[in-house]
C-alpha cells in the first residue's frame, strides 16, 4: 500500500462529489415537479406505455384477462373491484385531464436521466478516491457515507427499472444529496491510507454488503416515511398498499444481504480481533437492526400487524440502522472507530 495518496486523483474525486450533489439536487427538483404536476399514479398506470405496478393484490393481470373475467359474469373478485375503483378514482369522477404542458411531462424523464448520470458521477468519485488512496474506497466515515448514498440511489434506480416507483425519486435522491452535502461539509478528510486493521480483503466483502443492504433499507425507509405522512387526498402518491409492497420488496432483498454482512463481519473479527463476536457497540447495533428487521418480517406475517404497525416496526429498524451508521461511529468509542472525523 502506498503511503501517499495521488493528489490529482484525490482532487478530481472531490470535484466529482460536488458534481454529484449538483446533479442529485436538480434531479430531486425534477422529481418534485413530476410529483406535483405530473399524472397521478392511477392515471399513469392506465396509460399503456407505463408498466402496471406489479401485483395490485395479485391483480397484475393484464386488462385483457380482467375483461375476460367480466365476460364470465364473475365480478366477485376483489382484485377486479380494486382495479375498477382505482380507475374511477382517477378518471371516472374527474373530467378528462387537461393535456399537460411539455415541461411537466418531460420532468419525470429528465429526473431519471439526471439520476442515472448522477449515479455514474458518484461512482466515478468513489473510484477515483479509491485509486488515489490505493485501497477500497470505504475506509473512513466520509467515504462510507458517499458509498451509502451511491447504494441508495442505485437501489432506487434498479427497482425503478422493474416497478413504477418513480415517486420515490424525490425522497431517495434528495436524501442522497443531503447525505453527500453533509459528508463534504462535516466529514471530509484527505485521501490516504486506512487504519491498519482495515488492511484486509474482508473490507471488500463485509463493508460492501453492509453498504448494499443499507441502500435497500433506505429505499424501504423512504416508503415507510411516505406511508405515514401520506394523507388520503394525495392522489399523486401511490396507495399505502403499494408503498408497503415496495418497502417489503426492498427489505426482503436487503435482509439476507444484511445477514451476510453481519456474518462476514464476524469472520473478519475472528481474523482481526481474536473473536468472531464480542459485543462491540457496532456489533450490538448491527444485531439490534437485524432483530428489528426480523421482527418486521414476522409482523407482516402476523394477523393484526400488517399496514401501519409493520411500517412503524420497519421505521424503528431503519432508525437503528441510521444510529449504527452515524451515532455509533461518532459518539460511542469501540473497535469500529474508523470514522476519522476531522477534528
Amino acid at each position, binding site marked *: 500500500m502506498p503511503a501517499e495518496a495521488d493528489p490529482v486523483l484525490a482532487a478530481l474525486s472531490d470535484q466529482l462529489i460536488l458534481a454529484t450533489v449538483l446533479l442529485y439536487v436538480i434531479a430531486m427538483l425534477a422529481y418534485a415537479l413530476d410529483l406535483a404536476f405530473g399524472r397521478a399514479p392511477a392515471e399513469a398506470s392506465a396509460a399503456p406505455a407505463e408498466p402496471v405496478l406489479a401485483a395490485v393484490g*395479485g391483480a397484475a393481470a*393484464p386488462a385483457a384477462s380482467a375483461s375476460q*373475467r367480466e365476460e364470465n359474469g364473475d365480478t366477485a373478485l376483489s382484485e377486479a373491484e380494486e382495479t375498477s375503483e382505482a380507475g374511477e378514482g382517477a378518471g371516472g369522477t374527474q373530467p378528462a385531464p387537461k393535456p399537460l404542458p411539455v415541461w411537466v411531462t418531460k420532468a419525470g424523464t429528465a429526473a431519471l436521466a439526471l439520476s442515472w448520470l448522477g449515479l455514474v458521477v458518484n461512482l466515478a468519485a468513489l473510484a477515483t478516491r479509491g485509486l488515489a488512496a490505493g485501497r477500497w474506497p470505504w475506509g473512513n466515515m466520509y467515504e462510507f457515507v458517499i458509498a451509502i448514498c451511491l447504494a441508495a440511489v442505485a437501489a432506487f434506480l434498479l427497482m425503478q427499472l422493474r416497478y413504477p416507483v418513480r415517486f420515490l425519486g424525490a425522497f431517495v435522491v434528495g436524501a442522497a444529496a443531503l447525505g453527500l452535502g453533509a459528508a463534504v461539509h462535516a466529514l471530509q478528510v484527505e485521501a490516504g491510507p486506512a487504519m491498519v486493521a482495515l488492511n484486509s480483503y474482508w473490507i471488500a466483502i463485509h463493508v460492501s454488503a453492509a453498504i448494499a443492504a443499507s441502500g435497500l433499507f433506505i429505499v424501504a425507509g423512504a416508503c415507510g416515511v411516505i406511508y405515514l405522512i401520506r394523507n388520503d387526498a394525495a392522489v399523486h402518491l401511490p396507495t399505502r398498499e403499494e408503498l408497503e409492497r415496495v418497502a417489503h420488496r426492498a427489505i426482503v432483498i436487503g435482509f439476507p444481504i444484511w445477514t451476510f454482512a453481519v456474518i462476514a463481519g464476524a469472520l473478519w473479527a475472528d481474523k482481526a480481533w481474536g473473536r468472531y463476536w464480542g459485543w462491540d457497540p457496532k456489533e450490538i447495533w448491527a444485531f439490534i437492526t437485524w*432483530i428489528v428487521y426480523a421482527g418486521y418480517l414476522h409482523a407482516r406475517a402476523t394477523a393484526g400487524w400488517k399496514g401501519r404497525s409493520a411500517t412503524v416496526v420497519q421505521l424503528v429498524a431503519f432508525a437503528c440502522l441510521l444510529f449504527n451508521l452515524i451515532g455509533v461511529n461518532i459518539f460511542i468509542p469501540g473497535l469500529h472507530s474508523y470514522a476519522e472525523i476531522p477534528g
Partner: protein
Amino acid sequence: MTVTDTPERDDSEKAAEARPAKLGAVGWARWFWRTLTSMRTALILLFLFALASIPGSIWPQRGVSDAMVGQYYADDPELAEWLDRFWLFDVFKAPWFAAIYLLLFLSLIGCVLPRTMAHLRELRKKPPAAPRNLSRLPQHAVLDGDLTVEEAARRLRRLRFRVTTGPGWVSAEKGYLKETGNLLFHVALLGLLVAIGVGALYGYRGNVLVVEGDGFANTVAAYDRYMPGQQVNAESLEPFSFTLEDFQATYIAKGDKRGQALDYSAKLAVSDLPGAPERTYELKVNEPLDVNGTMTYLLDHGYAPTFKITDGKGQVAFEGSVPCLVIDPATFTSECVIKVADAQPEQLGILVAFLPSTVPAEGGEWVSIFPGAANPTAQVYGAFAGDLGMRDGVPQSVYEIPPEIQKKLKPLVMKADPLAVGQKLDLPGGAGSIEFTGVKEWIALQITYDPGRMPALLASVLATVALVFSLTVRRRRVWVRVGEGPQARAEAGGLTRTGGDFGEEFASVVAALNHGSNPGVKDAR
C-alpha cells in the same frame, strides 16, 4: 424469532386469550405453553431481545473495555456499584438477558417442532383436489385445444410441479422449499446458539505481553490474564511456544495523516510442539498465528526501553526492559515505572517518561512529535528511595507506584533532563545511577481457543442460505379442469399461498399447458 406465516399460530393465540376460568396444573401448563409459542409473544420477546442489548452499548462492558469500567468505579463508586447490581457492566452475561433469549429460543422450539412435523406430513401428501370453479381463483385462464388430464399432468410435471390427478382435473403444487428454508433457518439459529455455548464452555482466552527477544510458552502460568471456559482442563492447552524476534511498526511520515500507522509486523520463531523445529511466522493484525486451531492475535504494541540501574552499594540491581504504558497513541509518548526491589541499602522506585521522537518544546519541556523511534529519550521525572511495599502481599500494578506508598518515599530527583541511549543519570547522595541502554518494543497478544468457531460458521451459512429460500420462494398451486363433450374447453386456475406476484409465472404456465413446452419458463423453484 418464530417461524413466519402460521395459521396454527393464530389458533393458539385465540386459545391463549380465551382461557377458561378454572384451570388445573395441566391446563395452566398448556396455557403457558400456548402463550409462549404464540406469534405475538415471540414478537414481543424479539423486541425485548433488541431492547435489552441497548444498555450493552451505553455502558462499558467487562471483557470489552475493562479500563472504562474501572473509570466508572473511580469517578462514582456508588453509582458504579448500583449499575453493577443490575449487571449493566455485564449485560450479555446478565440473568435477565439470558432469560429473554432462553424464552425466545424456547418459543422458537415450540413453533418449529410442530411445524416441522406438519411440513413432513405435507411433503408426503398429494396436492389438494381442484376447486369446482377455477375462474374464482386469483389467476385464471381458458386453455385452447383439447387437453387431456394425462397430457396436462405431464406438462405440469415437466415444469417441476408436484402433480396429482382426479376425474377431469389436475392439481399441481410447487415451492415446498419456502417452508423447508424457513424451518432450516430457525433450526440453524438454534445450532448457532449451541455452537456459541460450546465455545464458551470448552474454549479459553488469554492475554500476554511479550517484549522483543523474549518468548512465550502456552501454559496457564505464562499468561498475564487467563480466562478459561468451565470445562477447560489446564493440561489440555496446545503445547506450542514462540520467541518474538523482532517487531516493526511503520507510520506515515508526511501530510495530514502523519503519524498514522501503516503496518505492524511481528516476527515470531514458532515451535508447534516442545522440541519441534522452529519455523518463522510473520504475525500481523489481520493474520493471526494458527497452531491446530489455537489462534494468536496481535492486538497492541508499545515501547519497552532497557535500563541498567546501579544501587548505592555500586552493584547492578536491575538490568532489562521495562514495558511502558502508551499515554498518547498519536506520538507514543509513554510512561514507565521501574521498581528496583533488589536495590541496597534502600529500594528504588523510578518514574520515566519515554519519548520516541524527542524535540525541545517551550519552557524547557520535551515532547514527542512522532510515534516512530527517531530520537528516543527517557526522562526521569521522579526517583524515590524507600520501602516500595511489595512484600505486603497486596498485589500492585506494574505500571504505577500507589500514591499512598509514594507519599512515604524519599524523593531523590524531581525532573531530570532526557537521557539519550547510552547516557547515565547519577542519583544524588550516592544512591546509585540509571543508565538508558536501549529501546525494545513490546506486543500485546491474545491467544484464543474456541471449538465452537467452525460449527458457528456452518450454522450461520446454513441460516443465510435457508433464509434466501424462505424469502424468495413462493408456494404456488395450479389446477386444470378438462370439460366433457364436444363443446367443452379446458381451463386453468392458480394462486400463491403466501401472496406476491404470480401473474407473470402463471401466464408462462398457461403457455406451457397450451403448447406442450415453453422454453421461456426458467423458474424451477
